[in-house]
């Protein structure tokens, strides 16, 4: 495990507030179909003008998935397009257009029991599919959702969330390298019986990482989310939202089977291994919904 890595993500997601607001405008004025149509053209812009992202998708398609050149060109377009659809759909869903979508729940009994119980829970997701589209669903159990987010990314979208009145949909716990406050905020939220959602697949600047094989090649995963999950007494649930078709999503949940060793120092590796297996399973089912647009593998 080491700190820092040339692969490190900058802490800010691609796309500025202007792009986001264009889609919000389109959704409100012209509806979902118009937004999808515009997206089909916008994607063509991103392929040449986001070279580092395009390069990383190309590597993913050619080296990790083993696609041919032709298949990779198609994959590239579909990958960007799916990201755009995810953005549009989460905006639409959080704007109250839930009836436009079909949601299927892969929710085992043990997960249901935990979500409907009184204890808090750590929810670990990924930059895959569209986890935000399902975030309001957690509210049906009457508990608050707290999303842990890099401080730079939070600052980037804070104004938009406030402007679109989405800040109340969930609370954001900003993470900064200089402060430990988030550790206490997370612990307090768990103690109140709330959910804390983390992404388990995104490195942070100077953050520690754990290198493990993922889809057949070694990749560094962030250590932080798994250390936090290991040291809290809360149940850990892996959660992914897969887009299965036109306005149709499947929410997949898996409870991590914790034991004494996973709650101690070093337990983060056990949680990460389990998370990785689940992530591999869902990514293989929909590889074009994997959205880590940077050099993910070593």
């Amino acid at each position: 495990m080491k700190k820092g890595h040339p692969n490190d993500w900058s802490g800010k997601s691609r796309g500025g507030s202007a792009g986001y607001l264009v889609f919000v405008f389109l959704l409100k004025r012209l509806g979902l179909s118009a937004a999808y149509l515009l997206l089909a053209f916008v994607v063509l812009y991103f392929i040449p003008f986001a070279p580092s992202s395009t390069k990383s998708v190309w590597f993913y398609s050619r080296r990790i998935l083993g696609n041919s050149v032709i298949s990779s060109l198609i994959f590239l377009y579909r990958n960007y397009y799916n990201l755009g659809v995810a953005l549009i759909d989460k905006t639409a869903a959080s704007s109250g257009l839930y009836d436009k979508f079909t949601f299927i729940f892969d929710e085992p009994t043990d997960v249901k029991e935990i979500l409907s119980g009184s204890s808090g829970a750590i929810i670990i997701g990924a930059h895959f599919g569209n986890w935000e589209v399902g975030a309001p669903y957690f509210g049906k159990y009457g508990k608050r959702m707290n999303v842990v987010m890099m401080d730079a990314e939070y600052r980037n979208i804070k104004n938009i969330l406030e402007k679109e009145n989405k800040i109340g949909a969930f609370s954001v716990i900003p993470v900064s390298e200089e402060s430990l406050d988030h550790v206490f905020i997370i612990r307090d939220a768990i103690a109140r019986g709330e959910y804390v959602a983390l992404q388990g697949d995104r490195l942070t600047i100077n953050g520690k990482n754990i290198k493990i094989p993922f889809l057949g090649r070694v990749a560094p995963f962030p250590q932080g989310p798994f250390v936090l999950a290991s040291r809290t007494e809360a149940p850990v649930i892996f959660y992914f939202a897969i887009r299965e078709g036109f306005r149709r999503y499947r929410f997949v949940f898996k409870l991590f089977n914790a034991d004494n060793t996973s709650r101690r120092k070093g337990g983060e590796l056990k949680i990460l291994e389990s998370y990785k297996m689940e992530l591999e399973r869902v990514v293989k089912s929909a590889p074009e919904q994997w959205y880590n647009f940077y050099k993910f593998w070593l």
Partner: protein
Amino acid sequence: MIDQALIDKINSVLAEEFEVEIERIIPEAPLMQTLDLDSLDLVDMVVLIEHNFGFTVVAKDFVGIKTFNDFYHYINNRLNEKGAPE
């Protein structure tokens, strides 16, 4: 004045948790550098304190703790506030 038994207990749990030789833990030594701690390791520090000394750590507790001596005083003061026997 801090009880030597408390200092010994603190040194012992820190040495074991952060895998440093106990001889390196001296009152004037810098805590973070000696134990090679970063922000993620502080998660373990919080768990260690709460499990071994039985009080809840809050974020502001870590402000001003630079040496092991500061740390001994912090633990001692919190235990006295709590009123629990060591």
